[in-house]
């Protein structure tokens, strides 16, 4: 409908005759013709503003010429536009000179001025702090994000950008759009707590809401994080759908459920790390420079928020680091078991820190070093040689102030103090460090309990899935055809996980390869004439082998799943279930035979 109503106007730009739609600006038409008009306050996704005036061009209409801003002047029929006439250039030079008097230190201004041969200014220089007052941040925040968390304050030469009433903007969703559009990099996003986050991961630097989930993800297609997407949070923005030429953005797409028929299942649902906030004494969440081992991994990774630089929260390099072992492991208060992997990854962390900050003091606070495995003990010895300080004694507390009278407070007040008992020296110690890394233990995955319920398998006391036999059947479960592998079964490192995974796969394959399942000899059977369909057996069957035939109104037993435990037989109130070759008369006969002999 728009196309039929469209009115075309004829105009010339720099002598080129062209047509444009009514309502188009000179800048839009010029862009189409690849005529470059410089701008400083223009951004295609916000309304024309006309503040920098750098885009001024000369328009001649009915013989009269005047200067208009190309970004906001809508084309009219018969106009002649000069974008690079002598007068235009002279005017731009003058404006750039004015810019240079304020912002000669700003890269974009200096570059643009240089293009016009303006490298100095005749006017008194009064350098700004870097904001050129283009208003892009303010406009993006209100027009695109819809947050209105930025505004101009004061007027005239006193004008500057700030938050409403110069306070912490309640409406800021920390999306970083302002910093993104800022042409001078004057706006920086800092991690300030207590505000609505679009970026939930902001504590380790913003990511974009649209991203490829992780490096080498399959398929390598970007996804929109609905919690981070401004459009999904506020209904504004929608820039991605405007720029995506193949029109591939779909805000409506939802998670879908797929049903697959399978013969065997391997559960490898993994683990979660211990939440150190539960152990308040370590200061996690209270002190900026107390991080977990996993956060260290994120931080030190080349694709991480700092590009792999190992830095403190204020951006400076830590000169001393304490790595605290057994956080949440081997501790009666939390988990009694050993998480098995922490000793080795703590050594790796120490090694990485040594590599990144060669002169750093690194402390490993351990209960005992557990390094079984191929090459593990050798790696420990190597760390000893690298000058990492190993202190035998668990770290017990992290504080900002020394608590032991013997500790000399450090000169810097940004130090953290780690208290421990050095069992080799037989004395308490307190280490002043810049950073503390908590080697958090492994715990059953968040939803382990629910998974166990769905698959009718058992969990051990610590919450990890139970194998059929700890020594003889480590990947099987009591449910035939369901196998477990990796940390779902218990903490283990990568080689062990791979080995167990391979074993589980082999077990599953052998089942598939056989093509048939050997049944238990004495499975239960329902006498349909007697069964009342009361569903008592459905509840008691630990293997999920009984269903109810709704048509007949009786219980049906799946022979392949029945493990002949007899629970249903005992529970059936009407005595409708019996076991094959194991009914009362048969047992009695067996007993009689036994007693007679």
């Amino acid at each position, binding site marked *: 409908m728009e196309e039929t109503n469209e009115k075309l106007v004829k105009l010339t730009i720099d002598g080129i005759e062209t047509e444009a739609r009514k309502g188009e*600006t000179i800048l839009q038409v010029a862009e189409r013709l690849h005529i470059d008009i410089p701008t400083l306050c223009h951004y295609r996704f916000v*309304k*024309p*503003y*006309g*503040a*920098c*005036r*750098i885009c*001024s061009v000369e328009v001649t209409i009915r013989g009269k010429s*005047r*200067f208009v*801003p190309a*970004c*906001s*002047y*809508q084309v009219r029929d018969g106009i002649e536009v000069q974008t690079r006439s002598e007068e235009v250039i002279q*005017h731009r030079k*003058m*404006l750039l000179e*004015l*810019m240079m*008097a*304020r912002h000669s230190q700003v890269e974009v201004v200096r570059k643009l001025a240089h293009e016009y041969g303006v490298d100095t200014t*005749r*006017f*008194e220089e009064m350098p700004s702090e870097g904001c050129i*007052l283009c*208003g892009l941040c303010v406009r993006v925040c209100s027009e695109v994000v819809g947050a209105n968390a930025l*505004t*101009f304050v*004061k*007027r*005239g*030469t*006193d*004008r500057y950008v700030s938050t409403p009433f110069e306070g912490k903007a309640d409406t800021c969703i920390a999306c970083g759009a302002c910093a993104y559009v800022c042409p001078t990099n004057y706006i920086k996003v800092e991690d300030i707590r207590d505000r609505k986050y679009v970026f939930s991961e902001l504590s380790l630097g913003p990511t974009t809401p649209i991203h490829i989930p992780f490096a080498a993800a399959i398929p390598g297609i970007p996804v929109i994080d609905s919690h981070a997407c401004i459009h999904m949070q506020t209904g504004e923005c929608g820039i991605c759908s405007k720029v995506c030429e193949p029109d591939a953005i779909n805000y409506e797409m939802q998670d879908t459920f797929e049903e697959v028929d399978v013969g065997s299942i391997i559960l490898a649902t993994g683990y979660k790390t211990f939440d150190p906030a539960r152990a308040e004494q370590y200061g996690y969440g209270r002190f900026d420079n107390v991080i977990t081992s996993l956060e260290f991994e994120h931080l030190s990774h080349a694709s991480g928020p700092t590009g792999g630089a190992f830095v403190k929260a204020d951006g400076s390099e830590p000169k001393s680091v304490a790595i605290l072992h057994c956080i949440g492991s081997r501790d009666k208060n939390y988990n009694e078991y050993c998480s098995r992997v922490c000793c080795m990854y703590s050594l790796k962390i120490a090694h990485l820190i040594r590599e990144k900050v060669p002169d750093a003091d690194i402390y490993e606070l351990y209960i005992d070093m557990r390094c079984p495995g191929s090459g593990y003990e050798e790696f420990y010895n190597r760390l000893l040689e690298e000058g990492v300080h190993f202190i035998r004694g668990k770290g017990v507390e992290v504080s900002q102030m020394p608590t032991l009278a013997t500790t000399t407070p450090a000169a810097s007040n940004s130090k953290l103090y780690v208290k421990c008992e050095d069992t080799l020296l037989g004395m308490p110690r307190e280490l002043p460090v810049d950073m503390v890394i908590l080697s958090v233990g492994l715990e059953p995955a968040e939803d382990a309990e629910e998974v166990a319920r769905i698959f009718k398998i058992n969990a051990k006391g610590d919450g990890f899935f139970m194998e059929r036999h700890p020594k003889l059947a480590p990947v099987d479960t009591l449910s035939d055809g369901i196998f477990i592998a990796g940390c779902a079964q218990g903490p283990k490192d990568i080689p062990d996980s791979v080995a167990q995974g391979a074993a589980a796969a082999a077990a599953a394959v052998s089942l598939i390869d056989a093509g048939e399942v050997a049944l238990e000899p004495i499975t239960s059977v329902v006498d349909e004439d007697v069964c009342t369909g009361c569903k008592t057996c459905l509840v008691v069957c630990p293997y999920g082998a009984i269903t109810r035939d709704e048509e007949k109104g009786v219980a049906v037993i799946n022979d392949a799943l029945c493990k002949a435990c007899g629970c249903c037989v005992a529970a059936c109130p009407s005595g409708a279930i019996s076991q094959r070759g194991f009914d009362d008369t048969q047992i009695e006969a067996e007993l009689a035979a036994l007693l007679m002999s």
Partner: protein
Amino acid sequence: MPKLGTIEQVKRFQEKCKTALDKFPLVVSLCHGTACCAIGAKELAAAFEEALNGEKSVKFIKSGCHGFCEVGPLVVVRPLDVVYQRVKPSDVPEIVERSLKKGEVIDRLLYRPRGNGKVYAKEEEIPFYAKQSKVVLALNSRIDPYSIDDYMAYGGYGALAKALLEMTPDEVLQEIVDARLRGRGGGGFDAGRKWKGCRSAPGERRHIICNADEGDPGAFMDESILEGNPHSVIEGMVIGAWAIGGTDGFIYVRNEYPRALRAFSNALKQAREYGFLGENILSSGMDFDIKVSRGGGAFVCGESSALFRSLEGDVGEPRAKYIHSVERGYHDEPTNLNNVETWANVPHIINRGAKWFRSLGTEDSPGTKVFSLVGKVENTGLIEVPMGITLKEVIFEIGGGIKEGRDFKAVQTGGPSGGMLSQSQLDLPVDFDVLTEAGSMMGSGGMIVMDEGTCVVDVAKYFTDFLIEESCGKCLPCREGLMHMSRILHRITEGQGEPKDMESLKRLGDAVAVASLCGLGTSAPNPVLSSIKYFEDEYLAHINERRCPGRVCRALISYHIDPDTCTGCGTCEKVCPVEAIQPVAGEEREEGLLRIIDLAVCDKCDACREVCPEEAILVESPAIALEHYRENVTEKR
């Protein structure tokens, strides 16, 4: 209050009001405008009220500004038709006794212009008034601004009745188009065209706005209209709403006008009571009301698009000019904005017709224009003159020439963004186009006259600084360009000017004028550019000779004592705060020793010159003063 619904009813009611007014055989009209109040009209009013003591035969009016502020407080006694000037509360009993009771004229209170020895009793005889032709100010001295009945007695709201009951909106619109009424707010845009544009703009609501954010220093035209005759503005706006299809009205008054606000708010209340505002006005079926919005003190909010933002509750900042306010103004809906004086002209045009209106003024700028004539003229005040009158007539006939017989130097028209015109431009007729062509502008009607003792560079600096202060800072040329212009001007007035500054000023001025976003920016360089155009020699004197011809710029003047005039009284020595004045030993004069100013110590505060009874203290350029100093003192020593 009767519900007025037909022309006859309105006319009958007007008659009734007139009869009520005519019942008073005597009228005392005291100018209760801002200027007169500042010099004692309030006390005077109290004195009159006490002296008259509820006297039934006298109608005592506390009216709006009569115009002749120079000689206020003013009192007009009718039917004697005599104007008393500089009246003090002590004169009141005599006025009551002699003028009211006996009908005598009190000679000593009459206006006597300096110099010619003549005495003027009647308003129409006084030269200040004689050359004026009052339309929008005509009722100012006759009605009580707080009385709608007074306004109606003089035919008020007759135009409204005529428009709403006898004319279609199109006919009203055509009348305004034919009258070629141009916006009195500064731009001089054709009001008829604006109204038409707004009327035909798509949209359900149309806003009618009165711009009363009069921020020009030295301007008080709109204030005086709102204070003196608020109903005329309301009437104009309602007629406008009828023609345009306006659904609601606003008046944006600057908060510094509490008196205007009070008068206007009262008028709104009365107009509502009488059914000239509100639902189904005069049974025409039109609903329309006016809300009052007070400005927050920003000059730029007088600019239409900034005014809309301010009205919406936003920061008042002009927006990109590709949007037309008649289509997308207040809340992005069709809006018609005119200033106070424009609206006040509307009832007159409807009453007397476009032809009458065009008989006033010039072909392209018909009608009259109100000016506030201030500065170094004998007669300062509020004037209303037909367009096309020359500057000379305004300044020398109405204004009575320059104060204290000094020489004329320049006149600044159009407020701070107007330009300075020199002697050679005095014969220019005052109209929108001529003034713009001359590098100044009509503006809203400020007219500041400067004498030879004014430094144009200093004045240009003052206005530029004012505009910097008021610039919103949105666009680069206005924000940065003006500031650099000001810095250069400051340097020049401080004696640090360089020849290349002239070129820089001109280039900067051009850039700001051409590239700025709104009218405030594009007109801001006017004072500088026009003063360079007409007074380049003054700039050059500052830069090249380090001399201020107006003897204003402190860095470029020196004080010295004329040894021939000095009587040695020593008054100057006593007032000098920096002890720069000392007696010269051996130089006896009538009253003591000759005094001398130590140029190295003198702070140029002007205190000595003000007190010297002999006017022996001279202000010269430093070089001349130094020469005097050497000749008369050092060598003699």
